[in-house]
């Protein structure tokens, strides 16, 4: 008997729908280094870049005022109020997570084209 690859025995393919596949996760810790911090322009640039990928992007700030921002929401990224020196964790979840993390970390490494 030929069964669909990956499917549990005896179950039709359709039953796979709705079962949450385990998605690849990539995560990187960075420190905001541009002197103006993550203000509106860099926040928008980050969101534009994140939107080039299908994966979910989350940015976490720890410390006294911890916050978890959807990396595809400009408003939430600005709410992070990440000043120079703030450590952030960027996490991507999805098939293109690794590629997304590389691109997003690169933005911080290049200080969003600022000083």
């Amino acid at each position, binding site marked *: 008997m030929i069964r669909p690859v990956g499917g549990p025995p005896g179950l039709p393919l359709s039953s796979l729908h709705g079962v949450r596949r385990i998605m690849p996760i990539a995560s990187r810790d960075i420190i905001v280094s541009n*002197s*103006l*911090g*993550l*203000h*509106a*322009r860099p926040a*928008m640039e980050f969101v534009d870049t994140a939107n080039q990928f299908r994966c979910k992007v989350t940015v976490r700030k720890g410390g006294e005022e911890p916050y978890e921002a959807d990396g595809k929401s*400009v*408003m*939430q990224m*600005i*709410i*992070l*109020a*990440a*000043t*120079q020196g703030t450590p952030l964790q960027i996490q991507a979840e999805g098939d293109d997570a690794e590629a997304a993390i590389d691109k997003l970390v690169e933005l911080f490494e290049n200080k969003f084209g600022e000083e």
Partner: protein
Amino acid sequence: MKLREFIVTDAVVPNLQAGDRDPALRELVSSLAAAGALPKSAVEEVVAALVKREQNGSTGFGKGVAVPHVKHAKVKQMCGTIGRSAAGIDFSALDHQPVFSIFLLLSPENQPQQHLQAMNIVFSNLQKDMFRRFLRQATTREAILELLDEADQGK
């Protein structure tokens, strides 16, 4: 940081006369100057800087709100105001929808941390559906200030 710490009470404009972006920015900056938060001689320069900022990328972040802001040498102390437009203003917003509520923020050049904190508190509130709805419905300065007080108290 609280909204009322930098929103200048007397500069709030509950019914903007302007129907377009640049005149609306001028109306709000002039209102800040009239309230004494900014030298009158600085109005045109600050408006020009705000317009340039909008041209580089709209601060109409969607959901009917815009947050025009600029750091400028002529600004000695961070100050902000709110303008409300019943008809809506085209801000080239990210979601292509008209803007009904404008949070305008002016900061000195050398205090990026304070600027980010103010942006944080503004956006934390603008994220809330109820806050945006009440702001849009607030037709008087008193109603807007009451809403700010409630937001500052975390209601």
